């Protein structure tokens, strides 16, 4: 049975799009049929991170409005056969998203794929509420700082009240993905600690993605980070998170403050 996942956060710039691409690619690498859907109409980014920006013909709005068929808008990834992208429109705004049209597209995607991963826009308005509307599972992306945590808390409240599942009286599975985590700065008290964030949000932890240049590098290359550098710390964290999403039990590795001998001698701190 297909699962619809919304990757959401409230706040912008915390890593929703990166996480959507990385988790989508990781699930597809494991052989699942995955589509990543960009709901950020007007500010689309997922096509760039997926490296598909030059292959967009039709988009989500075209399909929602009935101007194009779903299969015409879907872009199949060149690296992983089971991964597809449904891009957003860059020229329209979020008012072009109609609830009935979105419901129809999601229902159609459910039939074709094992995982439908919706990349939510920031904010709590129409785009964000429609992205979460049909979700079975929510991945709440949060950075370890107070404004991001409070916005995530707000989003969790909306997930519990505005989604189709919530309105039917059912539960929506919520998972916390703590992104851009810097163990050194957390130890110095410049960032919230993992346990503080978990205490405030009180939802289960899906993974901790360490702050890393690898993420930025991969985004600029248009490759999901999990494909770009399979050995990097964020890749391992995303692969573990994807396994947990599939229901596996994977031991949580906390990014630690490893310091090499040389950096200790020099008194500098390096991130593992």
């Amino acid at each position, binding site marked *: 049975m297909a699962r619809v996942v919304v990757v959401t956060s409230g706040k912008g710039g915390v890593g929703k799009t990166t996480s959507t691409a990385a988790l989508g690619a990781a699930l597809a690498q494991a052989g699942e049929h995955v589509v990543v859907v960009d709901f950020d109409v007007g500010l689309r980014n997922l096509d760039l991170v997926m490296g598909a920006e030059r292959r967009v013909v039709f988009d989500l709005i075209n399909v929602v409005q009935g101007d194009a068929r779903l299969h015409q808008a879907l872009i199949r990834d060149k690296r992983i056969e089971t991964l597809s992208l449904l891009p957003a429109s860059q020229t329209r705004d979020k008012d072009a998203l109609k609830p009935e049209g979105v419901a129809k597209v999601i229902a159609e995607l459910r039939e074709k794929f094992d995982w439908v991963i919706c990349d939510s826009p920031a904010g*709590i308005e129409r785009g964000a509420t429609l992205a979460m509307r049909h979700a079975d599972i929510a991945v709440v992306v949060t950075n370890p700082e107070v404004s991001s945590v*409070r*916005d995530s*808390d*707000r989003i*969790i*409240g*909306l997930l*519990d*009240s505005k989604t189709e599942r919530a309105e039917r009286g059912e539960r929506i599975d919520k998972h916390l993905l703590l992104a851009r985590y810097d163990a050194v700065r957390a130890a110095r008290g410049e960032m919230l600690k993992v346990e503080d964030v978990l*205490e*405030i949000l*009180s939802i289960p932890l899906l993974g901790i993605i360490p702050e890393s240049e690898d993420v930025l590098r991969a985004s600029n290359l248009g490759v999901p980070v999990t494909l770009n550098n399979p050995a990097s710390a964020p890749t391992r964290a995303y692969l573990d998170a994807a396994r947990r999403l599939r229901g596996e039990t994977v031991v949580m590795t906390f990014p630690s403050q490893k310091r090499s001998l040389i950096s200790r001698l020099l008194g500098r701190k390096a991130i593992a």
Partner: protein
Amino acid sequence: MAIVLTPEPPLANWLAALDAQIKAAPTFFDQQAVIVELIALPAETPDVAGFLEQLEQRGVRIIGTEGAHPSWRGIKTGLRPLANTRASSKPVAIRAPSPAAHPAKEPSALLIDRPVRSGQSVVFEHGDLTVVGSVSSGAEIVATGSIHVYGALRGRALAGLKGNGSARIFCRRLEAEFLSIDGLYHTADEIEPGLRGRAVQAWLDGKSLMIAALD
């Protein structure tokens, strides 16, 4: 608000009807101020004072009488004023059980057994509010009665809405942005730093909002 009772002769029958009423709704007169309108009784009615005593024995809290005949003895005429009470303009005649005599049972407490998230607002207008979980920063809980939070209180809590100065706020961990009881409030800045992170209660002492640790 006060209820107005208008006894009609014969008094024995009227009392029997009242007893039936009380049996059907035993709490009807609890906390209720009552004015007895004696206008329907003829001047020759014997022992009206005794009749009023019988009413009080049934738990009817008489705050005054109206329309007593000057020849009756032992009747306190007029209204004995009581703070915050006002006579209802419509007299309530007590007859055979009527639907109006069965006040709808309103819940007197509300239990929320999940966290109250940022941006959510819980308003309970019929008594005490209990939250089993935390109240997030940017969330708001409001009750006419007391507020109990079995978790961290990080948002805003307003107890004793509508003038209930005896309401209190209890929480397992005080991190609140705003605390208020019956209109008196403290912002986070005004809360003594030593109480942060502790289990506390807040209450009203006259015109000041007090907060003290529970442990």
